[in-house]
């Protein structure tokens, strides 16, 4: 049971409610895309899932995030362990500049003090999963910043996978990448989704259509908090949405 369940998620910044009552289930081994216009709360939502919302000093929260049945917000839950199980890939590639490619992949186990018996195998496996192995196998000891933007992002994915997370959150992982690199990242998502539940925020409708099994549409009407308007199988959301706001968004009529 590695399903991720979000129940009644509310998020505030100070007194301002930015996300109201979001309920979503992410079954293990599936890819869910979160779409919606800027400022609709989808990034805030995924940051509540691995407890990164609380980095903002004024942040407030209500709801439950259950991973394998345990609330990650429960008292006594170790937040660092939560983030170990729910990894994250960010919008901009952020490999550690002071480290080599190999060291970047091993950064997670090192930071979390996880003992790795066979580092070489772990590095190779993680880079394979991220579809980067063939490109970097001869230059593992070069600085990570020597890679191109797309390669850096896949390195960051490999880095996240090296600690064997149950869930991988991706916050617009391809927005800074060219189409070829984007495609590679999408292939990577396809490859890893059997082991890892993927939640991906994207502004790219085609990407959502290509990569995800389920899609949730978020929207914040003027002066209102962000809400989840519609959720369903990706095919249904794009071909036969129930809500006409979803339809107008996915057909590009607004947002």
């Amino acid at each position, binding site marked *: 049971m590695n399903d991720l369940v979000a129940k*009644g998620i*509310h998020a505030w910044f100070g007194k301002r*409610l930015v996300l109201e009552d979001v309920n979503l289930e992410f079954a293990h081994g599936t890819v869910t895309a979160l779409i919606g216009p800027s400022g609709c709360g989808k990034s805030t939502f995924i940051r509540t899932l691995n*407890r990164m919302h*609380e980095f903002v000093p004024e*942040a407030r*929260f209500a709801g439950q995030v259950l991973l394998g049945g345990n609330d990650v917000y429960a008292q006594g839950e*170790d937040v660092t362990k939560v983030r170990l199980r729910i990894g994250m890939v960010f919008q901009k590639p952020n490999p550690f500049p002071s480290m080599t490619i190999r060291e970047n992949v091993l950064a997670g186990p090192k930071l979390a*003090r996880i003992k790795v018996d066979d580092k070489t195998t772990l590095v190779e496996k993680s880079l394979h999963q991220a579809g980067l192995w063939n490109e970097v196998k001869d230059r593992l000891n070069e600085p990570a910043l020597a890679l191109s933007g797309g390669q850096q992002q896949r390195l960051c994915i490999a880095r996240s996978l090296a600690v064997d997370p149950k869930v991988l959150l991706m916050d617009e992982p391809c927005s800074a990448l060219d189409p070829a690199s984007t495609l590679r990242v999408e292939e990577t998502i396809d490859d890893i989704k059997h082991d890892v539940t993927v939640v991906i925020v994207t502004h790219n409708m085609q990407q959502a259509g290509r990569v995800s099994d389920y899609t949730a549409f978020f929207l914040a009407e003027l002066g209102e908090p962000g809400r989840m308007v519609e959720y369903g199988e990706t095919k249904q959301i794009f071909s036969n949405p129930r809500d006409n706001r979803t339809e107008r968004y996915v057909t590009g009529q607004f947002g």
Partner: protein
Amino acid sequence: MSVSVLPTQPWRATPRIMATEAAGVLAALLLTLLTLRFTGFSGRLAAAVLFVAFATAISSGIEWRRRGFEAAQDAFVRAMLLTASALVMLPLLSILWTVVQNGRAALRPNFFTQDLTSASGTGPIDQGGAIHAIVGSIELVALATLIAMPLGVLSALYLTEIRGRLSGTIRFLTQAMSGVPSVVAGLFVYSAWVLGPGKGFSGFAGALALAILMLPTVARTAEEVLKLVPEHLREAGLALGGTQWRTVAGIVLPTARSGLITAGILGVARIAGETAPLILTVFGAVAINTSMFNGPVSALPLYVFGELKLGLDTAFARAWTGALVLMFLVLVLFAFARWLGGRNTR
């Protein structure tokens, strides 16, 4: 539609955890007292060291039991940081306290309204004051800042924007200059200006000496701050058709403004209390000198130094008050600079 759900912060420590931590601190206090009572340890230093050791051990222990070894490490390092900050604050607060305590006695209205023309330093406390020194200090620091700020920022701009062939040399020399003893700066101005074109002691000579001391601090700090301005902002400015100077003046400097003001503050902090170079350049006086270019001027550090030399109780009291006023003056200056830097930033 009403929100029935209340905003919470589940990541905050619960009352129970906070109570545990408070109990831990109390236990550390108790252990300290017991140790002092029943062992050879005694004195305030021993008490402080014991308390820090016990509190660190207990809070790390609590975390260990609650969340394991890694969390205990977290708690340990946090305790160390807290101790280090406390150690840093201790001498500062102690100095502040001492100056305020000793400076209170002579802190009377006449200190701010009179000079030392009619009343000598040997007179009673309610006669004579330091207005000449206060005015002199403000003038000297202002003039020195006026000289050193543009020079420092411009040379920093040369290092970050022009990046000319001389950059390495200039950077090296500026760094070396920050090691120049202040007396040497005073001597330099004394021989190059006071004995020469300056024709004697003057406020300007003092400001020159202070500017020499202030310059490396301002230039180095300004350079670091300008380096933090992202390259893409410069590119954006240039891509809009701005010349390099227009881009620097319109985008780079405003972006770095608050940091540049910090550079100025650090520079002022460097020179406000300088005494040695002033003896050689402004000499000191007993009355306000309205001219910055002619004749000796006084300054608070000189005033303090002069009173100390008299060796009388009343003079000591005045010296402490001089130090107190100098500190307060610097504080006001900093607050003003911060306010200046904080405007329009949001």
